């Protein structure tokens, strides 16, 4: 990958475009980034994408901003990270500063509300789609125990409501222990 003007422009336009469409909370940036950088541009592979989300998730701040910092750093170094961060914060900055002037009018338009309600179902589908793809990747690993780790983490989050950092640290330790055990006794 050449570090030139074209690269930075592509990084900026990609993150600007993705950020302008991250309706429905931070996690939606994961399927959008995956589509752009893994499937379309092929700059990042599937596993690396998951690692990036893990790093983004363990750091303070918004997931979309954090994920864009890693993508930018990976593709264009520190300057790349600066470019992607600006690409990511500009759309909400522009949209919010415009909307804050005529907020009352905006929220009372009936069809905008209906449209947003429908988009919520779409956002849920987009997230479920990326979960399906990523879960397949985890399940295709030779060690099937990681499917159990995935289910435990899901249970810990949805049922036990454990803090995200506890889940991330716990699963990191689990991975460490599983690999150590596997080294001593190779799993067939």
């Amino acid at each position, binding site marked *: 990958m050449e570090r030139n003007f074209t690269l930075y422009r592509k990084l900026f336009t990609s993150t600007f475009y993705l950020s302008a*469409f*991250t309706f*429905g909370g*931070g*996690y939606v940036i*994961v399927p*959008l980034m995956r*589509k752009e950088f893994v*499937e379309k541009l092929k700059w990042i592979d599937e596993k690396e994408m*998951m*690692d990036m989300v893990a*790093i983004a*998730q*363990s*750091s*303070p*701040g*918004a997931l979309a*901003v954090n994920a864009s*910092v*890693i993508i930018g750093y990976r593709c264009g170094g520190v300057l790349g990270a600066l470019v992607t961060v600006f690409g990511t*914060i500009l759309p*909400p900055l522009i*949209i*919010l*500063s415009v909307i804050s002037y005529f*907020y009352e009018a905006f*929220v009372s338009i009936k*069809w905008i509300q*209906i*449209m*947003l309600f*429908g*988009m*919520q*179902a*779409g*956002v*849920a*589908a*987009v997230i*479920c*789609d990326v*979960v399906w793809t*990523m879960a397949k990747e*985890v399940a295709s690993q030779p060690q099937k125990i*990681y499917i159990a780790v*995935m*289910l435990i*983490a*899901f249970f810990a*989050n*949805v049922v036990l409501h454990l803090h*995200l950092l506890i889940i991330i640290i716990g*699963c990191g*330790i689990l*991975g*460490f222990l*599983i*690999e150590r055990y596997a080294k001593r006794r190779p799993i067939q």
Partner: protein
Amino acid sequence: MIYLQLLLSFLQIGLLSIGGGYAALPIIQSQVVDLHHWITMREFADILTISQMTPGPIAINGATFVGTKIAGLPGAIVASVGVVIPSFIIVLTLAFIYYKYRQLDTIQAVLKGLRPAVVALIASAGLSLAMSAFWPDGKMQLATISWESVGLFAVAFFILRKYKKSPIVVMFLCGVGAVLLSFFGIS
């Protein structure tokens, strides 16, 4: 002076909002409503509503809204920059460590445990989004389920899996679909 206050306040918000999204809310509230009285609780609730209707992280939206109100566009920029600086530094450091040491066996092992965790966390976000789409009034009973939402979800999921269409296009089509459904009086 007000710029410095905005910057310092939003630096703290950026640094302390671990877990993202709604985890940032109590910190934003304590800084901009309780401590500095920059906005009222009513306006704080408005930020939430707007954030649900517009793209972008809630912390950036809050920074822009408060910054604009206190010191215009420069205020919005200062507050937004403040809120991303901690993320930028910490994530950059972690990314540097990741790319330098990810070939080590120990890091490889830890990452192997983290990947399923990431999938599980995204899955739970998907679950709560789907539930709030299917039951818009919050009560989870068969009688109150929004069938048009379930239908849109099913069609969207099918199109995404089968035809690998762009998520952005699919999301918008769902919005347009809902408007059309209500226009023709189906929902």
